[in-house]
């Protein structure tokens, strides 16, 4: 109904897939990112339960019941946007913790049960009708955001998190996001010198676009052509240029994706993303295991001659930046079909 959705007006065709993606993401961030970290803080004496309760008492819970009657699509969009905010806030809080607090990667992995089932947090299952699940998820995203907010307040109180640092990082984060991917790709499509620099140098080339180069290691850029198709995975964890491109689609973190894409990429691309690659094309799977974070430059769709960069950028989907999809043809904008896993929603909020 609404044509002013900030996603090129594309409609949601598969509510179930969107809601399931939110469930997966929310559980991932709760059980793998935030709650294990809280346990580490408690064990190290950086925080106590008392600190958390004090911080919670200082601020009443937010009531998000805006009473406004919304249709299912609007409710799911609102849920996705709220989840996005939660995810951004997690990145913000965890990256701003500094000083003498030394929490390393392995602490979180141990604490969340990567090596020992005993530690694994029980996964929450969402059951019931779509309506019920959306209501429950909406409440849960709010509750999870509140946990994060309380955690941040307690950390500030204990001097582990500086408000100034937080504010500074918040400003920097405003400019990051998946739409950067669209801008980068559009420039590469229209400027072959830029593309050459991007593929050979990675991040430094991005300064030309006014994009902060980010902190997370080296950037590998892979160009898809008529004869070569690149696709990215991180089988050991979920490495991805988050700081640059924002969050990944939910399926990127799923074991089933990781297992199948390395051993049988053509089949999974066809089944889950409806991307059938000709036998003559070479498929290159890149397993991002260490310090290099990868992005794909999808092929430029035909029928785009003479289009401006800003228009071209809108054709770039999140999936296409990973190689699990192609860029959208101009005629298909707003009519993208949803595939079992496909995620055409580019979330280009700043255009």
């Amino acid at each position: 109904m609404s044509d002013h959705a900030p996603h090129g007006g594309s409609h949601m065709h598969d509510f179930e897939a969107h809601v399931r993606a939110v469930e997966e993401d929310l559980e991932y961030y709760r059980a793998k990112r935030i709650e294990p970290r809280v346990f580490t803080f408690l064990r190290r004496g950086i925080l106590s339960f008392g600190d958390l309760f004090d911080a919670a008492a200082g601020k009443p819970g937010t009531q998000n019941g805006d009473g406004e009657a919304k249709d299912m699509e609007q409710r799911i969009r609102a849920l996705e946007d709220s989840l996005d905010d939660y995810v951004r806030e997690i990145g913000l809080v965890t990256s701003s913790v500094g000083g003498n607090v030394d929490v390393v990667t392995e602490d979180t992995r141990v604490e969340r049960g990567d090596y020992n089932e005993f530690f694994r947090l029980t996964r929450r299952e969402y059951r019931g009708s779509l309506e019920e699940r959306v209501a429950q998820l909406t409440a849960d995203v709010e509750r999870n955001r509140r946990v994060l907010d309380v955690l941040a307040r307690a950390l500030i109180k204990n001097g582990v998190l500086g408000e100034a640092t937080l504010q500074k990082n918040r400003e920097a984060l405003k400019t990051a996001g998946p739409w950067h991917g669209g801008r980068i790709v559009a420039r590469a499509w229209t400027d072959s010198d830029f593309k050459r620099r991007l593929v050979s140098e990675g991040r430094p080339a991005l300064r030309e676009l006014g994009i902060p180069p980010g902190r997370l290691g080296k950037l590998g850029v892979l160009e898809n052509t008529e004869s070569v198709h690149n696709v990215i995975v991180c089988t050991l964890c979920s490495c991805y240029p988050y700081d640059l491109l924002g969050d990944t689609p939910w399926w990127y973190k799923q074991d089933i994706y990781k297992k199948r894409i390395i051993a049988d990429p053509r089949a999974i691309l066809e089944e889950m993303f409806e991307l059938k690659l000709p036998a003559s094309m070479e498929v290159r799977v890149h397993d991002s295991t260490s310090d290099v974070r990868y992005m794909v430059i999808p092929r430029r769709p035909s029928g785009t001659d003479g289009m401006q960069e800003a228009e071209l950028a809108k054709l770039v989907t999140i999936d296409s930046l990973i190689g699990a999809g192609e860029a959208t043809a101009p005629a298909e904008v707003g009519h993208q079909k949803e595939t079992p896993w496909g995620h055409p929603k580019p979330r280009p909020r700043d255009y």
Partner: protein
Amino acid sequence: MGRAVSARFKPGDRVLVKMEDRPGHIRTPWYVRGKRGWIERVYGEFRNPETLAYGGDGLPKRPLYLVGFEQSQVWNKYEAAKDKLFIDIYEHWLEPA
């Protein structure tokens, strides 16, 4: 102590991924251990994540390579002959092949 070592391999060199099993924050996936490939690109030197992840300083830095594999060499029944797999692997996991 913290001095970096220089890269032992150059692009095009054939390499074998060591077949080792040890606990820890290992960045070499199981499915390529014991497989043969080639050096596609030398990425430079990075702090070693195997010690960094435990709160160590990750020094000395280790050279990191982009290593290419033929999919048909990695998986028994892989059909499409041209398809390839690329993985970033640290030098101490590689030997000449």
